[in-house]
C-alpha cells in the first residue's frame, strides 16, 4: 500500500483543534496508532480516524523517540555489560568472587559474566599481588584481550605493592595501563563495586579509542620486522628476559 506523507493525510476529526484535551481511552488508542505509524505500519479499521495529529503527534514523537549518536549508544551498551576475565591472583580474588555473590550482586549492573578466556573478556581485574615472575603473564593476558578493554587494579599490592613493598612485587602501572585503582587490603566488595561503577561512568562519558589513545601510548607498539621467525624471541627460554 502506498503511504502518503503525514501532512497530507486527512485525519477526519471534525471540529477538533490540535492540543484539545481528550479522554484517556481515546488518547491511549491514538498513542497506539501513532506507534503503529512510527513503526512503518498503516492504520486500518475503526481507529483510522482516531489517531494523533498536529502538535499532539509532534509531542508524541518527541517523547517516545530518543536520538543519540551511535558512539553513545555503543558506550551505553558496553558500559552495562562488562565481561571481566576470571583471573585471580591472591587475597583480593576472594573478595572479587564475593561481588558476584548474593550480597553485592554485581549482576544488577551486568558485570557477572566472568570469562575464563581473555579473548572473550573486556575487563581485567587485577586482584592481588603481582610478582615479578607473574608480571609478563599478566601483560600477556592483557594483550590477548580484544579492544576495547579496560583494567582495574584491585587492592594495594598491584597498585603500589602495598604492605610488602619488597623485592618480589611490581606495581601493575609499571607494565600495563590501569584505568581504575581500588584501594584497600583487600578492598571490601562494595569498594570494588564502586570502582566498577566509576569505570562504567568513564566508559559512558568518553568514546573508547583503544588504550594506546587513551593513555598517549602511540608509538609503543611492538612492530614485527620483515621476518618474524628470525626476529622472534622465545620468552619461555630460561635466562632470556629480553622479550618478556
Amino acid at each position: 500500500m502506498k503511504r502518503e506523507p503525514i501532512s497530507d493525510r486527512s485525519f477526519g476529526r471534525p471540529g477538533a483543534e490540535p492540543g484539545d484535551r481528550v479522554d484517556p481511552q481515546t488518547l491511549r488508542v491514538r498513542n497506539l496508532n501513532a506507534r503503529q505509524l512510527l513503526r512503518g505500519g498503516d492504520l486500518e479499521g475503526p481507529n483510522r480516524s482516531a489517531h494523533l495529529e498536529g502538535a499532539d503527534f509532534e509531542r508524541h514523537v518527541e517523547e517516545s523517540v530518543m536520538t543519540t549518536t551511535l558512539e553513545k549508544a555503543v558506550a551505553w551498551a558496553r558500559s552495562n555489560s562488562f565481561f571481566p576475565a576470571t583471573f585471580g591472583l591472591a587475597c583480593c580474588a576472594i573478595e572479587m568472587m564475593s561481588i558476584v555473590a548474593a550480597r553485592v550482586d554485581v549482576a544488577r549492573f551486568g558485570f557477572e559474566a566472568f570469562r575464563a578466556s581473555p579473548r572473550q573478556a573486556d575487563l581485567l581485574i587485577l586482584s592481588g599481588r603481582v610478582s615479578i615472575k607473574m608480571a609478563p603473564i599478566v601483560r600477556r593476558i592483557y594483550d590477548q584481550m580484544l579492544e576495547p578493554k579496560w583494567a582495574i587494579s584491585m587492592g594495594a599490592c598491584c597498585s603500589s605493592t602495598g604492605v610488602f613493598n619488597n623485592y618480589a612485587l611490581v606495581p601493575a602501572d609499571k607494565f600495563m595501563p590501569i584505568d581504575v585503582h581500588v584501594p584497600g587490603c583487600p578492598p571490601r566488595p562494595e569498594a570494588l563495586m564502586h570502582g566498577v561503577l566509576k569505570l562504567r561512568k568513564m566508559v559512558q562519558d568518553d568514546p573508547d579509542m583503544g588504550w594506546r589513545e587513551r593513555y598517549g601510548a602511540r608509538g609503543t607498539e611492538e612492530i614485527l620486522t620483515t621476518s618474524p621467525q628470525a626476529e622472534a624471541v622465545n620468552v619461555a627460554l630460561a635466562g632470556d628476559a629480553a622479550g618478556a
Partner: protein
Amino acid sequence: MSEYRRREQSITLAPFDEQLEDGSGGHDGDTTAELLTLNFGPHHPATHGVLRLLVTLQGEVVRDIKPIIGYVHTGIEKTAEDKSYWKVIPVIERMDYLSYYFNAMAFCGAVETLVEVEVPKRAQYLRVIHLELNRIMSHLVWLGTSALDLGAMSMFWYCFRERETILDLFEMSSGQRMHTRYFQVGGVIEDIPPGFAEKLRGFLEEMPGRVDQYGAILSANEIVLQRLRGTCPLDADTLLSLGVTGPLLRAAGNPWDLRKADPYSSYEDFDFKIPVGTVGDNYDRFAVRLAEIYESVKIVEQALEGLPEGPYITEDRKVALPPRHELATSMEALIHHFKLVTEGFRVPPGELYFPIESPRGELGCFVRSDGSSKPARVHMRDPSFVNLQAFSHMAKGAYIADLIATLAMLDPILGGIDR
C-alpha cells in the same frame, strides 16, 4: 612445518576409532601411544590461584604432573625479618589468605613461647572462637569454588552467603573482613563488642542446618558422586611419607589432628570429634571437610558458653600495649607505649617451631631470635605447599577430568605455597 602443526593437520574427520588404530591418538591400553605435554595455568580458573602444572597426557590419561610454583611469591618471610615482632603479624596473615587467623596464631604462639608470656584464658577462648569461624569460612570458600569446578554453580552462592555472615562477625570484632590483625602477641587486640555473642549464637544455630543442605545438594547428586567417589585415592602411609596432613590425611583414615594430638590455646577444654574417612578418595576428602564444619560449630558453641571473664590481653606491659586511658595518667605506661611502638619488644635469643592445625593441615611457624626486636628468621611450614607434592601421586593414571576434581579437593592456596 613444526611438529605441532603436523600433528594438528593429521587430525581428520574420520571416525574416532579409525584414527586411534595407527597409534596417533591416545589409546588407553596402547603403550606406544604418543605422549602429549599440556601446559595448565598459571591463568586457569580451576587452579585456585596461579598454580602452573605441566601435565603429561597419554590420550586422556594423566601420566605425569609437574607443578611449577612461585607466581605469587611475595617475599613475606624476608619482609618479616625487617620488621619488629608485632609488625610482622599483618604480613604473616597475608600468606595463606583464607586462613589469616591461623597464620597469626602460629606466629603469635611461637613468639609468646619464646618470650614466655602467658596468654589469659579469655584471650585463648576468643582465639578459639575466631580460629574455628575462620576454619568454617575457609571450608565454605573451598566448597563453593570446588563445586564450581565440578559444574555445580548454585553451591557458590549458598557458601558465600554464609561466608558473609562470618565476615560480618570478624568485622564486628576487629573492623576488617579479611586480614584482621586481631591476634596480638599476648592475647587479642580488643574484647568482643556488645552484640557479637548474640549474632554469633544466631549463626551457630543456623549453620548446622545449612551444612545439612549442602550435603543434601551434593551428596545425592549423581554427577558429584561419579566425579568424586573412587577417584584418585591415596593411602595413609603414602600420604604420611609425603608429609601430608590435615583433611587429606584424615580422609585416608588417620585421625591426626594437632588440636587433639598437641593442644594449644585451650583446645583440650573442648569436646569435639575428628572426622575421618575410609579409603581416602576424593569423596572422603569432600565428606571430611563437610563434617569438620559441624565440629567447628560445636567448638565455637562451647567456647562461647564457657567464655571466662578476665583480661583479653596479657597484663605484661613489656609485650602488650597499655590501655589508652592509662596513657593520660601513668608516666610508666607512656614509656612502655613509646618503647613498644618505636622499637618493639625484644625477644630472648632462641628458636622455636610452633605447629597448629590449619584448615589445610599442619601450619607451623619457625621463629629464630637473636635477642633484638626483629626476628632473625621467620619460616612457615605451610600445609598447602607440602600437600601439593602428593598431587602427582594422586592424579597419576587418572583421567584429566579427575585431575581437576582432585586439585579442587586438595584445596591448595597459592598464597601459602609461594609466600
